[in-house]
Protein backbone atom coordinates (compact mmCIF):
# COMPACT_ATOMS: atom_id res chain seq x y z
CA UNK A 1 0.00 0.00 0.00
CA UNK A 2 1.36 3.39 -0.93
CA UNK A 3 1.67 6.39 1.25
CA UNK A 4 -0.12 8.43 -1.37
CA UNK A 5 -3.46 7.03 -0.32
CA UNK A 6 -2.86 5.70 3.14
CA UNK A 7 -4.14 8.79 4.80
CA UNK A 8 -7.41 9.31 3.01
CA UNK A 9 -8.26 5.65 3.43
CA UNK A 10 -7.48 5.96 7.09
CA UNK A 11 -9.70 9.01 7.26
CA UNK A 12 -12.51 7.09 5.67
CA UNK A 13 -12.05 4.27 8.10
CA UNK A 14 -12.28 6.68 10.97
CA UNK A 15 -15.74 7.65 9.85
CA UNK A 16 -16.67 4.01 9.54
CA UNK A 17 -15.29 3.22 12.93
CA UNK A 18 -17.05 6.01 14.69
CA UNK A 19 -20.27 4.60 13.44
CA UNK A 20 -19.30 1.08 14.18
CA UNK A 21 -18.79 2.26 17.71
CA UNK A 22 -22.30 3.55 18.04
CA UNK A 23 -23.55 0.21 16.88
CA UNK A 24 -24.53 1.73 13.58
CA UNK A 25 -26.66 4.40 15.21
CA UNK A 26 -25.84 6.62 12.30
CA UNK A 27 -28.23 4.56 10.25
CA UNK A 28 -30.84 4.02 12.78
CA UNK A 29 -32.97 7.01 13.43
CA UNK A 30 -33.46 7.25 17.13
CA UNK A 31 -31.30 4.18 17.44
CA UNK A 32 -28.58 3.71 19.97
CA UNK A 33 -29.96 4.07 23.41
CA UNK A 34 -32.60 5.80 25.47
CA UNK A 35 -30.03 6.89 27.94
CA UNK A 36 -29.36 10.39 26.78
CA UNK A 37 -25.80 10.75 28.08
CA UNK A 38 -24.68 7.71 26.11
CA UNK A 39 -26.49 8.90 23.03
CA UNK A 40 -25.01 12.36 23.33
CA UNK A 41 -21.52 10.97 23.57
CA UNK A 42 -22.18 8.82 20.51
CA UNK A 43 -23.38 11.84 18.58
CA UNK A 44 -20.45 13.89 19.80
CA UNK A 45 -17.98 11.23 18.77
CA UNK A 46 -19.62 10.88 15.39
CA UNK A 47 -19.50 14.63 14.81
CA UNK A 48 -15.93 14.68 16.00
CA UNK A 49 -14.90 11.95 13.57
CA UNK A 50 -16.68 13.70 10.71
CA UNK A 51 -15.00 17.00 11.45
CA UNK A 52 -11.65 15.27 11.75
CA UNK A 53 -12.10 13.58 8.38
CA UNK A 54 -13.15 16.83 6.77
CA UNK A 55 -10.16 18.59 8.28
CA UNK A 56 -7.78 15.93 6.97
CA UNK A 57 -9.28 16.05 3.49
CA UNK A 58 -9.22 19.86 3.47
CA UNK A 59 -5.61 20.01 4.57
CA UNK A 60 -4.68 17.44 1.96
CA UNK A 61 -6.44 19.58 -0.62
CA UNK A 62 -4.11 22.44 0.26
CA UNK A 63 -0.81 20.67 0.79
CA UNK A 64 -0.90 17.95 -1.84
CA UNK A 65 0.58 18.63 -5.25
CA UNK A 66 -2.06 19.77 -7.71
CA UNK A 67 -2.30 16.44 -9.53
CA UNK A 68 -2.90 14.52 -6.31
CA UNK A 69 -5.37 17.13 -5.10
CA UNK A 70 -7.23 16.57 -8.35
CA UNK A 71 -7.34 12.85 -7.66
CA UNK A 72 -8.71 13.57 -4.22
CA UNK A 73 -11.28 15.96 -5.66
CA UNK A 74 -12.47 13.22 -7.98
CA UNK A 75 -12.70 10.74 -5.12
CA UNK A 76 -14.81 13.15 -3.09
CA UNK A 77 -17.30 13.51 -5.93
CA UNK A 78 -17.35 9.74 -6.41
CA UNK A 79 -18.11 9.34 -2.72
CA UNK A 80 -21.23 11.42 -3.28
CA UNK A 81 -22.07 9.25 -6.30
CA UNK A 82 -21.70 6.11 -4.20
CA UNK A 83 -23.71 7.45 -1.26
CA UNK A 84 -26.52 8.55 -3.58
CA UNK A 85 -26.52 5.12 -5.22
CA UNK A 86 -26.54 3.42 -1.86
CA UNK A 87 -29.82 5.12 -0.96
CA UNK A 88 -31.29 2.62 -3.42
CA UNK A 89 -28.91 -0.26 -2.84
CA UNK A 90 -28.37 -0.51 0.90
CA UNK A 91 -31.36 1.42 2.20
CA UNK A 92 -33.97 0.69 -0.43
CA UNK A 93 -32.89 -2.81 -1.42
CA UNK A 94 -33.08 -1.84 -5.09
CA UNK A 95 -30.10 -3.02 -7.12
CA UNK A 96 -29.79 -0.37 -9.81
CA UNK A 97 -27.26 -0.77 -12.57
CA UNK A 98 -28.46 2.42 -14.23
CA UNK A 99 -27.01 5.11 -12.00
CA UNK A 100 -24.61 6.15 -14.74
CA UNK A 101 -27.58 7.63 -16.59
CA UNK A 102 -28.20 10.18 -13.87
CA UNK A 103 -24.50 10.83 -13.45
CA UNK A 104 -24.19 11.34 -17.19
CA UNK A 105 -27.26 13.56 -17.35
CA UNK A 106 -25.73 15.76 -14.65
CA UNK A 107 -22.45 16.00 -16.52
CA UNK A 108 -24.02 16.57 -19.92
CA UNK A 109 -26.39 19.30 -18.74
CA UNK A 110 -23.35 21.32 -17.72
CA UNK A 111 -21.24 20.39 -20.73
CA UNK A 112 -23.97 20.85 -23.34
CA UNK A 113 -25.22 24.05 -21.70
CA UNK A 114 -21.73 25.39 -22.32
CA UNK A 115 -21.30 23.90 -25.81
CA UNK A 116 -24.63 25.20 -27.09
CA UNK A 117 -24.32 28.54 -25.27
CA UNK A 118 -27.71 28.15 -23.63
CA UNK A 119 -26.83 27.98 -19.94
CA UNK A 120 -24.31 29.73 -17.81
CA UNK A 121 -22.20 27.48 -15.61
CA UNK A 122 -24.14 28.34 -12.48
CA UNK A 123 -27.49 27.88 -14.20
CA UNK A 124 -26.37 24.52 -15.53
CA UNK A 125 -25.12 23.39 -12.12
CA UNK A 126 -28.48 24.31 -10.62
CA UNK A 127 -30.47 22.68 -13.40
CA UNK A 128 -28.46 19.44 -13.55
CA UNK A 129 -29.87 17.81 -10.39
CA UNK A 130 -33.42 18.52 -11.44
CA UNK A 131 -32.75 17.07 -14.86
CA UNK A 132 -31.41 13.95 -13.15
CA UNK A 133 -34.45 13.78 -10.90
CA UNK A 134 -36.83 14.18 -13.84
CA UNK A 135 -35.13 11.41 -15.80
CA UNK A 136 -35.17 9.24 -12.69
CA UNK A 137 -38.88 9.85 -12.27
CA UNK A 138 -39.76 8.54 -15.71
CA UNK A 139 -37.29 5.66 -15.67
CA UNK A 140 -38.43 4.77 -12.15
CA UNK A 141 -42.05 4.58 -13.30
CA UNK A 142 -40.99 1.89 -15.76
CA UNK A 143 -38.30 0.07 -13.80
CA UNK A 144 -40.27 -0.25 -10.57
CA UNK A 145 -42.79 -2.44 -12.31
CA UNK A 146 -40.15 -5.12 -11.91
CA UNK A 147 -38.21 -6.38 -8.94
CA UNK A 148 -34.88 -7.80 -7.92
CA UNK A 149 -32.90 -9.23 -10.81
CA UNK A 150 -35.27 -7.90 -13.45
CA UNK A 151 -35.01 -4.46 -11.89
CA UNK A 152 -31.22 -4.66 -12.04
CA UNK A 153 -31.30 -5.72 -15.67
CA UNK A 154 -33.88 -3.17 -16.83
CA UNK A 155 -31.88 -0.39 -15.19
CA UNK A 156 -28.81 -1.77 -16.95
CA UNK A 157 -30.76 -1.46 -20.20
CA UNK A 158 -31.52 2.17 -19.32
CA UNK A 159 -27.83 2.73 -18.88
CA UNK A 160 -27.10 1.39 -22.33
CA UNK A 161 -30.03 3.32 -23.78
CA UNK A 162 -28.61 6.54 -22.41
CA UNK A 163 -25.16 5.59 -23.67
CA UNK A 164 -26.33 4.92 -27.23
CA UNK A 165 -28.42 8.09 -27.37
CA UNK A 166 -25.46 10.21 -26.32
CA UNK A 167 -23.13 8.29 -28.60
CA UNK A 168 -25.29 8.33 -31.70
CA UNK A 169 -26.83 11.82 -31.54
CA UNK A 170 -23.47 13.35 -32.20
CA UNK A 171 -24.73 16.57 -33.75
CA UNK A 172 -26.21 17.53 -30.40
CA UNK A 173 -23.97 15.71 -27.93
CA UNK A 174 -20.59 15.61 -29.64
CA UNK A 175 -20.91 11.86 -30.11
CA UNK A 176 -18.25 9.45 -28.98
CA UNK A 177 -15.65 12.20 -28.62
CA UNK A 178 -17.74 13.78 -25.93
CA UNK A 179 -17.66 17.44 -25.00
CA UNK A 180 -14.55 19.12 -23.72
CA UNK A 181 -13.18 22.60 -23.46
CA UNK A 182 -12.93 25.62 -21.20
CA UNK A 183 -16.35 25.29 -19.67
CA UNK A 184 -15.53 26.51 -16.18
CA UNK A 185 -16.09 30.11 -15.13
CA UNK A 186 -13.01 32.13 -14.29
CA UNK A 187 -13.54 31.89 -10.53
CA UNK A 188 -13.25 28.10 -10.71
CA UNK A 189 -10.11 27.90 -12.81
CA UNK A 190 -7.76 27.74 -9.88
CA UNK A 191 -7.45 24.02 -9.01
CA UNK A 192 -7.48 24.68 -5.26
CA UNK A 193 -10.69 26.66 -5.56
CA UNK A 194 -12.20 23.91 -7.68
CA UNK A 195 -11.16 21.39 -5.06
CA UNK A 196 -12.98 23.21 -2.31
CA UNK A 197 -15.97 23.86 -4.51
CA UNK A 198 -16.32 20.12 -5.14
CA UNK A 199 -15.68 19.34 -1.49
CA UNK A 200 -18.30 21.76 -0.19
CA UNK A 201 -20.98 20.71 -2.67
CA UNK A 202 -20.30 17.01 -2.00
CA UNK A 203 -20.30 17.38 1.76
CA UNK A 204 -23.54 19.38 1.75
CA UNK A 205 -25.15 16.83 -0.56
CA UNK A 206 -23.96 13.90 1.55
CA UNK A 207 -25.25 15.64 4.67
CA UNK A 208 -28.66 16.04 3.06
CA UNK A 209 -28.63 12.36 2.08
CA UNK A 210 -27.74 11.48 5.64
CA UNK A 211 -30.77 13.43 6.81
CA UNK A 212 -32.92 11.60 4.30
CA UNK A 213 -31.77 8.19 5.53
CA UNK A 214 -32.14 9.29 9.14
CA UNK A 215 -35.77 10.31 8.72
CA UNK A 216 -39.19 8.71 8.79
CA UNK A 217 -38.85 8.30 5.03
CA UNK A 218 -35.51 6.54 5.41
CA UNK A 219 -36.95 4.28 8.07
CA UNK A 220 -39.86 3.25 5.87
CA UNK A 221 -37.47 2.69 2.99
CA UNK A 222 -35.38 0.30 5.07
CA UNK A 223 -38.53 -1.48 6.20
CA UNK A 224 -39.53 -1.95 2.55
CA UNK A 225 -36.07 -3.32 1.82
CA UNK A 226 -36.45 -5.93 4.53
CA UNK A 227 -40.05 -6.97 3.86
CA UNK A 228 -42.16 -5.18 1.33
CA UNK A 229 -45.29 -7.31 1.80
CA UNK A 230 -45.36 -6.62 5.51
CA UNK A 231 -44.93 -2.88 5.06
CA UNK A 232 -47.53 -2.87 2.31
CA UNK A 233 -49.97 -4.52 4.72
CA UNK A 234 -49.33 -1.72 7.21
CA UNK A 235 -50.64 0.82 4.73
CA UNK A 236 -47.42 1.99 3.08
CA UNK A 237 -47.58 2.65 -0.64
CA UNK A 238 -44.40 0.76 -1.48
CA UNK A 239 -44.24 1.88 -5.10
CA UNK A 240 -44.51 5.57 -4.22
CA UNK A 241 -41.75 5.35 -1.63
CA UNK A 242 -39.43 3.46 -3.93
CA UNK A 243 -40.10 5.93 -6.70
CA UNK A 244 -39.34 8.82 -4.35
CA UNK A 245 -36.07 7.15 -3.39
CA UNK A 246 -35.24 6.63 -7.06
CA UNK A 247 -35.86 10.32 -7.79
CA UNK A 248 -33.79 11.48 -4.82
CA UNK A 249 -30.99 9.17 -5.86
CA UNK A 250 -31.18 10.47 -9.43
CA UNK A 251 -31.05 14.03 -8.14
CA UNK A 252 -27.84 13.51 -6.18
CA UNK A 253 -26.19 11.27 -8.76
CA UNK A 254 -26.68 14.15 -11.18
CA UNK A 255 -25.02 16.50 -8.68
CA UNK A 256 -22.07 14.12 -8.64
CA UNK A 257 -22.08 14.06 -12.43
CA UNK A 258 -22.03 17.85 -12.63
CA UNK A 259 -19.06 17.83 -10.26
CA UNK A 260 -17.30 15.47 -12.65
CA UNK A 261 -17.35 18.30 -15.19
CA UNK A 262 -15.72 20.61 -12.67
CA UNK A 263 -13.04 17.97 -12.19
CA UNK A 264 -12.43 16.96 -15.80
CA UNK A 265 -13.91 19.81 -17.88
CA UNK A 266 -15.43 17.18 -20.11
CA UNK A 267 -18.32 14.81 -20.53
CA UNK A 268 -18.34 11.70 -22.66
CA UNK A 269 -20.68 8.78 -23.41
CA UNK A 270 -18.83 6.24 -21.26
CA UNK A 271 -20.13 8.06 -18.18
CA UNK A 272 -23.53 6.53 -18.90
CA UNK A 273 -22.38 3.03 -19.80
CA UNK A 274 -23.35 0.08 -17.65
CA UNK A 275 -19.81 -0.48 -16.43
CA UNK A 276 -19.68 3.04 -15.02
CA UNK A 277 -23.15 2.45 -13.57
CA UNK A 278 -21.57 -0.46 -11.79
CA UNK A 279 -18.79 1.62 -10.24
CA UNK A 280 -20.81 3.21 -7.39
CA UNK A 281 -22.42 -0.17 -6.74
CA UNK A 282 -19.00 -1.76 -6.28
CA UNK A 283 -17.89 1.10 -4.06
CA UNK A 284 -20.90 0.60 -1.84
CA UNK A 285 -20.39 -3.16 -1.75
CA UNK A 286 -16.71 -2.84 -0.87
CA UNK A 287 -17.31 -0.19 1.78
CA UNK A 288 -20.46 -1.78 3.15
CA UNK A 289 -24.03 -0.99 2.12
CA UNK A 290 -25.73 -1.13 5.47
CA UNK A 291 -23.85 1.67 7.17
CA UNK A 292 -24.17 5.22 5.94
CA UNK A 293 -20.40 5.91 5.64
CA UNK A 294 -19.80 2.57 3.91
CA UNK A 295 -19.93 3.88 0.34
CA UNK A 296 -17.64 6.78 1.29
CA UNK A 297 -15.06 4.36 2.60
CA UNK A 298 -15.61 2.23 -0.48
CA UNK A 299 -15.15 5.18 -2.83
CA UNK A 300 -11.85 6.13 -1.22
CA UNK A 301 -10.56 2.56 -1.18
CA UNK A 302 -11.72 1.83 -4.74
CA UNK A 303 -10.65 4.98 -6.49
CA UNK A 304 -7.35 5.50 -4.73
CA UNK A 305 -6.40 1.89 -5.27
CA UNK A 306 -7.42 2.32 -8.90
CA UNK A 307 -5.34 5.47 -9.34
CA UNK A 308 -2.35 3.91 -7.70
CA UNK A 309 -2.52 0.46 -9.23
CA UNK A 310 -3.07 1.67 -12.77
CA UNK A 311 0.27 3.47 -12.53
CA UNK A 312 2.10 0.42 -11.30
CA UNK A 313 0.45 -2.63 -12.79
CA UNK A 314 -1.52 -3.71 -15.79
CA UNK A 315 -3.59 -6.01 -13.68
CA UNK A 316 -5.79 -3.52 -11.91
CA UNK A 317 -8.92 -5.31 -13.11
CA UNK A 318 -7.71 -8.68 -11.84
CA UNK A 319 -7.00 -7.20 -8.43
CA UNK A 320 -10.37 -5.44 -8.35
CA UNK A 321 -12.07 -8.66 -9.41
CA UNK A 322 -10.41 -10.68 -6.67
CA UNK A 323 -11.26 -8.02 -4.06
CA UNK A 324 -14.88 -7.89 -5.20
CA UNK A 325 -15.15 -11.67 -5.07
CA UNK A 326 -13.60 -11.79 -1.62
CA UNK A 327 -15.90 -9.07 -0.27
CA UNK A 328 -19.10 -10.35 -1.76
CA UNK A 329 -18.51 -14.00 -0.87
CA UNK A 330 -16.70 -13.66 2.45
CA UNK A 331 -17.58 -10.24 3.84
CA UNK A 332 -20.97 -9.27 2.41
CA UNK A 333 -21.28 -6.35 4.83
CA UNK A 334 -18.15 -4.75 3.39
CA UNK A 335 -15.34 -2.94 5.16
CA UNK A 336 -17.47 -0.89 7.54
CA UNK A 337 -19.73 -3.81 8.32
CA UNK A 338 -16.75 -6.03 9.08
CA UNK A 339 -15.27 -3.40 11.35
CA UNK A 340 -18.56 -2.99 13.18
CA UNK A 341 -18.85 -6.74 13.58
CA UNK A 342 -15.27 -6.96 14.79
CA UNK A 343 -15.78 -4.19 17.30
CA UNK A 344 -18.91 -5.66 18.79
CA UNK A 345 -17.07 -8.97 18.97
CA UNK A 346 -14.19 -7.29 20.79
CA UNK A 347 -16.62 -5.49 23.06
CA UNK A 348 -18.44 -8.69 23.92
CA UNK A 349 -15.31 -10.68 24.56
CA UNK A 350 -14.06 -7.66 26.50
CA UNK A 351 -17.13 -7.82 28.70
CA UNK A 352 -16.65 -11.52 29.17
CA UNK A 353 -13.06 -11.22 30.31
CA UNK A 354 -13.53 -8.01 32.23
CA UNK A 355 -12.57 -8.48 35.86
CA UNK A 356 -10.01 -11.09 34.96
CA UNK A 357 -7.72 -8.66 33.25
CA UNK A 358 -7.92 -5.35 31.54
CA UNK A 359 -8.73 -5.80 27.94
CA UNK A 360 -6.68 -3.86 25.46
CA UNK A 361 -8.29 -1.34 23.20
CA UNK A 362 -6.39 -2.36 20.09
CA UNK A 363 -7.08 -4.98 17.52
CA UNK A 364 -10.21 -3.35 16.26
CA UNK A 365 -9.37 -3.80 12.62
CA UNK A 366 -7.06 -2.59 9.92
CA UNK A 367 -7.71 1.06 10.71
CA UNK A 368 -6.53 0.43 14.23
CA UNK A 369 -6.46 3.47 16.45
CA UNK A 370 -8.83 5.70 14.52
CA UNK A 371 -11.86 5.25 16.75
CA UNK A 372 -10.41 4.28 20.09
CA UNK A 373 -12.22 2.22 22.69
CA UNK A 374 -13.80 4.05 25.60
Amino acid at each position, binding site marked *: MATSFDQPVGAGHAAGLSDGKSGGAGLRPGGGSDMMPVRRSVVARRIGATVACLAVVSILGVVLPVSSALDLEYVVSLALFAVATNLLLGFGGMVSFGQGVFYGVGAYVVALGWMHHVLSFVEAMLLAPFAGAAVAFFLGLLALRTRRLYFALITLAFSQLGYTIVQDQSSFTGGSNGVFGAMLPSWLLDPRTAFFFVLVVSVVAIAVLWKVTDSPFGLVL*RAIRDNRERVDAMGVNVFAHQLAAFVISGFFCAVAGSLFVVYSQSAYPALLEWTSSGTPVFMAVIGGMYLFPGPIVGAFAYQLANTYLIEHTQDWQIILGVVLLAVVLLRPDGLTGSIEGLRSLVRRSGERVRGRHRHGSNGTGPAGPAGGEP
Partner: protein
Amino acid sequence: MSSPILATHRLVRDFGGFRAVDGVELAIEPGTIHALIGPNGAGKSTLFKLMTGVLRPTSGDVVLGGESIGGKRAHAVARRGLVQVFQLSSICARLTVVESVMVGIVTMRHRSFDPVTLFHRRARGEALSVLDQVGLVDLAEARAGKLSHGDQRALEIAMALAVRPSVLMLDEPTAGMSPAETRATADLIVSEARSRNLTVVLSEHDMDVVFGISDRVTVLHQGRVIAGGTPGEVRAHPEVMAVYLGQGTDGGEVRS
Protein backbone atom coordinates in the same frame (compact mmCIF):
# COMPACT_ATOMS: atom_id res chain seq x y z
CA MET B 1 -77.35 -5.17 17.08
CA SER B 2 -75.23 -2.56 15.35
CA SER B 3 -74.29 -2.52 11.67
CA PRO B 4 -71.29 -4.71 10.83
CA ILE B 5 -67.86 -3.05 10.63
CA LEU B 6 -66.67 -5.59 8.07
CA ALA B 7 -68.84 -7.55 5.68
CA THR B 8 -68.52 -9.61 2.54
CA HIS B 9 -71.25 -9.91 -0.07
CA ARG B 10 -71.42 -12.94 -2.34
CA LEU B 11 -67.64 -13.04 -2.41
CA VAL B 12 -66.24 -15.37 -5.08
CA ARG B 13 -62.68 -16.18 -6.06
CA ASP B 14 -61.66 -18.62 -8.77
CA PHE B 15 -58.22 -20.02 -9.45
CA GLY B 16 -58.37 -21.36 -12.97
CA GLY B 17 -61.32 -23.70 -12.83
CA PHE B 18 -61.19 -24.08 -9.07
CA ARG B 19 -63.57 -22.00 -6.94
CA ALA B 20 -61.72 -21.39 -3.68
CA VAL B 21 -64.26 -19.00 -2.20
CA ASP B 22 -67.87 -19.52 -3.24
CA GLY B 23 -70.37 -16.78 -2.47
CA VAL B 24 -69.31 -16.08 1.10
CA GLU B 25 -71.53 -13.77 3.16
CA LEU B 26 -69.97 -12.51 6.36
CA ALA B 27 -71.01 -9.81 8.79
CA ILE B 28 -68.58 -8.97 11.56
CA GLU B 29 -69.78 -6.86 14.46
CA PRO B 30 -67.54 -4.09 15.78
CA GLY B 31 -65.59 -4.87 18.90
CA THR B 32 -65.92 -8.63 18.61
CA ILE B 33 -63.41 -11.41 18.19
CA HIS B 34 -64.50 -13.41 15.19
CA ALA B 35 -62.90 -16.72 14.29
CA LEU B 36 -62.87 -18.34 10.86
CA ILE B 37 -62.37 -22.08 11.01
CA GLY B 38 -62.56 -24.94 8.60
CA PRO B 39 -60.56 -27.91 7.40
CA ASN B 40 -57.56 -27.44 5.15
CA GLY B 41 -58.52 -26.16 1.74
CA ALA B 42 -61.76 -24.70 3.09
CA GLY B 43 -60.79 -21.30 1.69
CA LYS B 44 -59.81 -19.51 4.90
CA SER B 45 -56.52 -18.18 3.59
CA THR B 46 -58.06 -17.09 0.30
CA LEU B 47 -60.89 -15.36 2.14
CA PHE B 48 -58.33 -13.57 4.28
CA LYS B 49 -56.41 -12.41 1.26
CA LEU B 50 -59.57 -11.17 -0.40
CA MET B 51 -60.53 -9.13 2.66
CA THR B 52 -57.06 -7.63 3.07
CA GLY B 53 -56.60 -6.73 -0.58
CA VAL B 54 -53.79 -9.17 -1.32
CA LEU B 55 -56.09 -10.91 -3.81
CA ARG B 56 -58.82 -9.40 -5.95
CA PRO B 57 -62.25 -11.03 -5.87
CA THR B 58 -63.59 -12.67 -9.02
CA SER B 59 -66.97 -11.23 -8.07
CA GLY B 60 -68.74 -9.92 -5.00
CA ASP B 61 -67.55 -7.26 -2.61
CA VAL B 62 -65.93 -6.54 0.72
CA VAL B 63 -67.32 -3.64 2.75
CA LEU B 64 -65.37 -1.99 5.54
CA GLY B 65 -67.22 0.56 7.66
CA GLY B 66 -69.76 1.12 4.89
CA GLU B 67 -67.14 1.59 2.16
CA SER B 68 -66.43 -0.92 -0.57
CA ILE B 69 -62.82 -2.19 -0.46
CA GLY B 70 -63.18 -5.20 -2.74
CA GLY B 71 -60.29 -5.17 -5.21
CA LYS B 72 -58.47 -2.31 -3.50
CA ARG B 73 -54.80 -2.94 -2.95
CA ALA B 74 -53.38 -4.00 0.38
CA HIS B 75 -51.87 -0.68 1.40
CA ALA B 76 -55.08 1.15 0.51
CA VAL B 77 -57.11 -1.32 2.58
CA ALA B 78 -54.70 -0.93 5.49
CA ARG B 79 -55.05 2.84 5.24
CA ARG B 80 -58.77 2.43 5.82
CA GLY B 81 -58.15 0.62 9.09
CA LEU B 82 -58.00 -3.06 8.21
CA VAL B 83 -54.58 -4.45 9.01
CA GLN B 84 -53.41 -8.02 8.85
CA VAL B 85 -50.76 -10.14 10.48
CA PHE B 86 -49.49 -12.84 8.16
CA GLN B 87 -49.58 -16.52 8.83
CA LEU B 88 -45.85 -16.97 8.39
CA SER B 89 -43.48 -14.88 10.41
CA SER B 90 -42.99 -11.70 8.47
CA ILE B 91 -40.79 -9.06 10.03
CA CYS B 92 -38.17 -6.56 8.91
CA ALA B 93 -35.10 -8.47 9.97
CA ARG B 94 -32.50 -5.70 9.90
CA LEU B 95 -34.61 -3.18 11.78
CA THR B 96 -34.64 -2.98 15.54
CA VAL B 97 -37.82 -3.87 17.38
CA VAL B 98 -38.68 -0.28 18.18
CA GLU B 99 -37.98 0.81 14.62
CA SER B 100 -40.31 -1.85 13.29
CA VAL B 101 -43.14 -0.40 15.33
CA MET B 102 -42.15 3.16 14.40
CA VAL B 103 -42.79 2.23 10.77
CA GLY B 104 -46.43 1.71 11.65
CA ILE B 105 -46.67 4.94 13.61
CA VAL B 106 -44.98 6.98 10.91
CA THR B 107 -47.35 5.48 8.36
CA MET B 108 -50.46 6.03 10.42
CA ARG B 109 -49.49 9.67 10.98
CA HIS B 110 -48.90 10.19 7.26
CA ARG B 111 -45.29 11.10 7.92
CA SER B 112 -43.67 8.38 5.85
CA PHE B 113 -42.51 10.88 3.23
CA ASP B 114 -41.12 13.17 5.89
CA PRO B 115 -37.43 13.68 5.14
CA VAL B 116 -36.88 15.59 8.40
CA THR B 117 -35.99 13.87 11.63
CA LEU B 118 -38.05 15.91 14.08
CA PHE B 119 -40.94 13.48 14.11
CA HIS B 120 -38.72 10.70 15.30
CA ARG B 121 -38.73 11.32 18.99
CA ARG B 122 -42.52 11.33 19.18
CA ALA B 123 -42.82 8.24 17.01
CA ARG B 124 -40.28 6.52 19.19
CA GLY B 125 -42.20 7.32 22.36
CA GLU B 126 -45.42 6.00 20.89
CA ALA B 127 -43.66 2.90 19.63
CA LEU B 128 -42.26 2.17 23.08
CA SER B 129 -45.72 2.40 24.60
CA VAL B 130 -47.08 -0.06 22.05
CA LEU B 131 -44.17 -2.38 22.82
CA ASP B 132 -44.97 -2.03 26.48
CA GLN B 133 -48.48 -3.32 25.86
CA VAL B 134 -47.29 -6.44 24.06
CA GLY B 135 -44.48 -7.02 26.55
CA LEU B 136 -41.55 -6.39 24.24
CA VAL B 137 -40.26 -3.12 25.63
CA ASP B 138 -37.16 -4.75 27.07
CA LEU B 139 -36.19 -5.92 23.60
CA ALA B 140 -36.76 -2.54 21.96
CA GLU B 141 -33.18 -2.20 20.71
CA ALA B 142 -32.74 -5.79 19.58
CA ARG B 143 -32.66 -6.65 15.90
CA ALA B 144 -36.04 -8.00 14.88
CA GLY B 145 -34.37 -10.84 13.00
CA LYS B 146 -32.74 -12.11 16.19
CA LEU B 147 -35.93 -12.53 18.21
CA SER B 148 -37.43 -15.89 19.10
CA HIS B 149 -40.39 -17.09 17.07
CA GLY B 150 -42.89 -16.16 19.79
CA ASP B 151 -41.40 -12.69 20.21
CA GLN B 152 -41.46 -12.17 16.46
CA ARG B 153 -45.18 -12.98 16.40
CA ALA B 154 -45.76 -10.52 19.25
CA LEU B 155 -43.72 -7.92 17.37
CA GLU B 156 -45.89 -8.43 14.32
CA ILE B 157 -48.99 -7.80 16.36
CA ALA B 158 -47.33 -4.69 17.78
CA MET B 159 -46.47 -3.50 14.27
CA ALA B 160 -50.10 -3.94 13.27
CA LEU B 161 -51.41 -2.24 16.41
CA ALA B 162 -49.12 0.73 15.77
CA VAL B 163 -51.24 1.58 12.76
CA ARG B 164 -54.28 1.83 15.10
CA PRO B 165 -56.46 -0.42 13.02
CA SER B 166 -60.20 -0.69 13.46
CA VAL B 167 -60.05 -4.31 12.33
CA LEU B 168 -57.09 -6.60 13.01
CA MET B 169 -56.84 -9.70 10.85
CA LEU B 170 -54.76 -12.51 12.31
CA ASP B 171 -53.96 -15.47 10.07
CA GLU B 172 -53.21 -18.37 12.42
CA PRO B 173 -51.58 -16.25 15.12
CA THR B 174 -50.51 -19.22 17.21
CA ALA B 175 -49.11 -21.42 14.44
CA GLY B 176 -45.85 -23.01 15.46
CA MET B 177 -46.03 -21.77 19.05
CA SER B 178 -45.40 -23.62 22.26
CA PRO B 179 -48.41 -24.03 24.59
CA ALA B 180 -47.11 -21.22 26.82
CA GLU B 181 -46.61 -18.88 23.87
CA THR B 182 -50.06 -19.81 22.56
CA ARG B 183 -51.67 -18.92 25.87
CA ALA B 184 -49.79 -15.63 26.06
CA THR B 185 -50.81 -14.74 22.52
CA ALA B 186 -54.45 -15.58 23.17
CA ASP B 187 -54.41 -13.39 26.29
CA LEU B 188 -52.78 -10.58 24.32
CA ILE B 189 -55.44 -10.76 21.61
CA VAL B 190 -58.26 -10.62 24.14
CA SER B 191 -56.79 -7.78 26.15
CA GLU B 192 -56.01 -5.69 23.07
CA ALA B 193 -59.46 -6.29 21.62
CA ARG B 194 -61.20 -5.33 24.85
CA SER B 195 -59.04 -2.35 25.79
CA ARG B 196 -59.02 -0.77 22.35
CA ASN B 197 -62.52 -1.84 21.33
CA LEU B 198 -60.76 -3.50 18.43
CA THR B 199 -62.45 -5.89 16.05
CA VAL B 200 -60.35 -9.03 15.59
CA VAL B 201 -60.82 -11.53 12.79
CA LEU B 202 -58.67 -14.62 13.11
CA SER B 203 -58.27 -17.91 11.39
CA GLU B 204 -57.01 -20.58 13.70
CA HIS B 205 -56.41 -24.28 13.94
CA ASP B 206 -56.12 -24.47 17.69
CA MET B 207 -59.69 -25.17 18.81
CA ASP B 208 -58.94 -24.30 22.41
CA VAL B 209 -57.99 -20.82 21.31
CA VAL B 210 -60.97 -20.54 18.98
CA PHE B 211 -63.57 -21.59 21.50
CA GLY B 212 -61.75 -19.92 24.37
CA ILE B 213 -61.57 -16.36 23.08
CA SER B 214 -64.03 -15.91 20.21
CA ASP B 215 -67.34 -14.12 20.42
CA ARG B 216 -68.39 -15.46 17.06
CA VAL B 217 -67.25 -18.39 14.94
CA THR B 218 -67.80 -18.90 11.22
CA VAL B 219 -67.18 -22.33 9.72
CA LEU B 220 -66.03 -22.64 6.12
CA HIS B 221 -66.13 -25.79 4.07
CA GLN B 222 -65.20 -26.06 0.39
CA GLY B 223 -65.33 -22.31 0.00
CA ARG B 224 -68.79 -21.88 1.55
CA VAL B 225 -70.06 -20.83 4.95
CA ILE B 226 -71.74 -23.83 6.51
CA ALA B 227 -72.36 -22.45 9.97
CA GLY B 228 -71.94 -19.34 12.04
CA GLY B 229 -72.80 -18.13 15.52
CA THR B 230 -71.54 -18.21 19.06
CA PRO B 231 -68.98 -20.88 19.91
CA GLY B 232 -71.69 -22.86 21.65
CA GLU B 233 -74.02 -22.77 18.66
CA VAL B 234 -71.27 -23.77 16.27
CA ARG B 235 -70.10 -26.60 18.44
CA ALA B 236 -73.62 -28.02 18.46
CA HIS B 237 -74.22 -27.56 14.74
CA PRO B 238 -74.76 -30.96 13.12
CA GLU B 239 -73.18 -30.15 9.78
CA VAL B 240 -70.08 -28.82 11.48
CA MET B 241 -69.74 -31.96 13.51
CA ALA B 242 -70.11 -33.97 10.34
CA VAL B 243 -67.64 -32.23 8.03
CA TYR B 244 -65.20 -30.73 10.41
CA LEU B 245 -65.08 -31.58 14.05
CA GLY B 246 -65.83 -35.19 13.31
CA GLN B 247 -62.77 -35.73 11.17
CA GLY B 248 -60.15 -35.13 13.83
CA THR B 249 -60.49 -32.11 16.01
CA ASP B 250 -57.25 -30.30 15.46
CA GLY B 251 -57.90 -29.90 11.75
CA GLY B 252 -54.32 -30.78 10.94
CA GLU B 253 -51.21 -28.70 10.79
CA VAL B 254 -50.19 -29.30 7.22
CA ARG B 255 -51.17 -26.42 5.02
CA SER B 256 -51.13 -25.83 1.34
